[in-house]
């Protein structure tokens, strides 16, 4: 058991909240939305969404990118009243980026819920040059900024919202195992 890997509960709305904001790096809202609760808002990432800050379409607001969504999230949480619950759904990089924004806005235990969903893609942190590599699908990845070929460890940093990548052939230069897809 890797202690640095967060464990995610299945998604459900927390009925003790007065308002609910669901942010997802996926294009569709999550299944199992409790429609008995009011004040539920869903932010999604649809790559073909409108290119300017958009009003709500019903209770759903599509963004063109995660970056745009997260920038709006920071703004939104700065104005939000207590009682809000934030649910971040998607890749681990996205949900911990969102959680870190929420913590900076003053949210904490009982207000932030994270749920991993979608393709098993990892953000990898090159421990040799500090470059972030997005959406890595296999456990051996070259760093685009330095010449290291990285082994993507299961060691996850919540602060960086990234997995640690370390030089795979540090001991025997050139000895690079075949890459494998992530099971989790």
């Amino acid at each position: 058991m890797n202690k640095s890997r967060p464990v995610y509960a299945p998604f459900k709305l927390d009925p003790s909240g007065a308002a609910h904001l669901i942010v997802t790096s996926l294009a569709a809202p999550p299944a199992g939305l409790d429609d008995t609760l009011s004040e539920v808002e869903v932010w999604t990432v649809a790559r073909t969404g409108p290119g300017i800050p958009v009003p709500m379409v019903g209770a759903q607001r599509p963004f063109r990118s995660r970056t745009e969504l997260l920038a709006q999230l920071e703004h939104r949480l700065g104005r939000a009243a207590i009682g809000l619950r934030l649910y971040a759904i998607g890749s681990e990089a996205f949900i911990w980026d969102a959680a870190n924004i929420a913590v900076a806005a003053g949210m904490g235990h009982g207000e932030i819920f994270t749920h991993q969903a979608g393709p098993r893609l990892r953000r990898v942190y090159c421990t040799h040059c500090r470059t972030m590599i997005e959406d890595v699908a296999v456990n051996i990845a070259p760093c685009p900024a330095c010449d290291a070929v990285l082994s993507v460890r299961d060691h996850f940093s919540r602060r960086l919202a990234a997995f640690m990548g370390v030089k795979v052939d540090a001991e025997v230069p050139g000895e690079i195992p075949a890459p494998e897809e992530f099971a989790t």
Partner: protein
Amino acid sequence: MNLAIADIETLSPGLKRFTFTGAELPWAGPGSHLVLEIPGAERTRKNAYSLIAAPDGAYRIVVRRVERSRGGSHWLHDHARPGDVLEVRAPQNFFHPPRNAKRHLLLSAGIGITPFLAYAQTSGLVYELHHCCKPEEAHSFRALLPQGANAVLHTNREALNLHGLLARQKLETHLSICGPESFMDHAISLAKSLGWPPAKIHLESFGSANWGNPFSVRLKRSGITVDVRPGESVLEALEAAGLNPPCLCRGGACGECRMSVLEGTPEHHDHYLSESEKTSGKSMMICVSRAITPELLLDF
């Protein structure tokens, strides 16, 4: 440690400020309290009082003369004189300002103002304080309250729009409450109904719930039965019987005096156990909680 009363100031007929001095007083941050051992006709009382300021060569507390006093506040009001020396335990803190809060909403009623007087003097602590008191004590509390628009006095609880106040807070605010049990329970349930997460609600209670019916406590491991009188806590009754159960805050906040209840039904007055733990009735905080049944069997 033995500390001498250096000064006693009358703030109102029911409120006095006591200053204790001694050599090398340990530092105490905002929210700390002292436990004073107060002489009494039958036995020594151990009462906890919040420090109203950081130590500056002296500890300062404000004591209300409680009508149905169990002895402590009457002695301090009626018999204590400057120069008297009391046994005082070094300050403990179960109510320090939450560290990750950027703003603090402070709610107090009556003598519950005392820890927040220390909060208000803490540099860098951004707060909004709402204090409720009876109209006849408004003058005394106004004099105690910090100056400024962020400290507001309400002369009855209805004058404070608690719902609006709790609903409009931002995410970075933490709520701290100190006052009588009914005031705290009302504020807590209102805050929870507005979606405040329990992790952002902080409480300091003081032993106001010790009145009630007499009952007896059987102690399984000690093999004795102790009678608990009205106006006396289980903790005090056990101490009077020569036992030394673990305890720290004596106010239902710290969790140190938790005891397993093997038989009988406790009546909870603490803010430590969770709702489900209280409902199960399998444990109790003996410093403030009492019994519904005539007898309790405790695992001690």
